[in-house]
């Protein structure tokens, strides 16, 4: 846990709700980004992000000082996202190539074109591949942090990540986006 996170977590554990708001301010964006890339629906991602933060708040007593708060929070967010996708699969015939909801990308986002190519490439991956590549290249986590979040060995993280990178490369080439 970074010193700053540790201080905030400690303050929340003492009953200071404002300190948790600071943690929300720090991690709202990366958590939302990761969740959005996983579930590919803007509204669902917002709901899951909110649920993840509320769960983290309620379970703050279980956040150990030796652990990294962001790893712990990301684990909650990733699990929430995976549970959401499982529920969705049960409820409907969820297709991995279903279009994502991206509100007015041309006007709201500078990287609309990159995002569209990326969306298609990520859609071609299984969840086992998509989760590690998102954690690695969007949240910049280490192998050991990803292994801790997903509760799998580092060697499995590596092999899934290498496969995911291969899929990403092939998809972007197929789309003519990279050489």
């Amino acid at each position, binding site marked *: 846990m970074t010193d700053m996170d540790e201080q905030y977590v400690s303050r*929340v554990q003492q009953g200071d709700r404002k300190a948790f708001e600071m943690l929300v*301010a720090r991690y*709202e*964006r990366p958590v939302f980004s990761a969740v959005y890339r996983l579930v590919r629906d803007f509204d669902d991602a917002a709901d899951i992000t909110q649920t993840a933060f509320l769960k983290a708040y309620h379970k703050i007593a279980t956040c150990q000082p030796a652990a990294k708060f962001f790893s712990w929070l990301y684990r909650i967010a990733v699990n929430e996202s995976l549970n959401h996708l499982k529920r969705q699969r049960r409820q409907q015939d969820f297709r991995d190539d279903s279009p994502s909801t991206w509100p007015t990308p041309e006007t709201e986002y500078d990287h609309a074109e990159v995002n569209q190519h990326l969306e298609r490439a990520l859609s071609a991956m299984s969840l086992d591949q998509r989760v590690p590549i998102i954690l690695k290249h969007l949240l910049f986590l280490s192998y050991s942090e990803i292994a801790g979040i997903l509760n799998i060995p580092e060697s499995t993280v590596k092999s899934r990540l290498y496969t995911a990178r291969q899929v*990403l490369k092939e998809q972007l080439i197929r789309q003519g986006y990279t*050489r």
Partner: protein
Amino acid sequence: MIEDRIIELMNGEIDGINSQRDSEWLREYLAGDPEARAYFEELRDSIAVLERAGPVQPPPGLRGRLLAALADAPVPVTGGHRARLQFLRDAFAFRRQPSHALAFGVGAVLAAIVLLALGLPVGPERSEVNTIYGVALDRRGEAPVAVLTAEGVRCEIDARRHERNVLLWVSLASDRSILAVLEAEGPARCEGVLAPEAPGTDEISISGSRVELTHKGVGRYQISYHETEGVPLTYRIELYAEGAVLAEQSFTARRE
């Protein structure tokens, strides 16, 4: 066909975890194998696309919705609460056992003397509160890393770095509406702005490493950054009013 161990080294190179010897070996290998070189370049390019996409901006209402839900949530009972409750129970038990109270008192005094002798803080935090225009700054006794002044405007900044994370406290006092633009001079992204003590705030916008605050009155903002390449960066703040620059300054963060 590229061997698995070469692909593993390529991935290790991208992650920056190869030893110097492995990196050199791979470089030489790629120089002599055009197929592997092309594969490596494609792999590197595709990851650059992924990283270039960057974080997705959450919907504007999410923070407010989340904070409102938090406000309604009960304060969680934590180990800290339980420990304090146990401490209070023990303290009240002293009334029934005076010898325990005496031992506790002597122990606490000795501990305080030892901490003072070692120069360690006695109490939760060795912080100091200073004020500008009535704005509180937690400075821990140190001067701000930047002070900007103009007619009717004052801005003080404290900035602390821990590893790749930088937390800035920006205190602003202005008798007119100003625009404060803060930007990291290098690869970084702003991860959030909190304005719990900024009642004069009209608007906050974040775009990558750039933060814009429209401000009038007195207030303090907490702004967090993540430096993506792990190289300590310089930050720059500019204050504008009616399109003209009032003051500008570059600064670096202190190490936490």
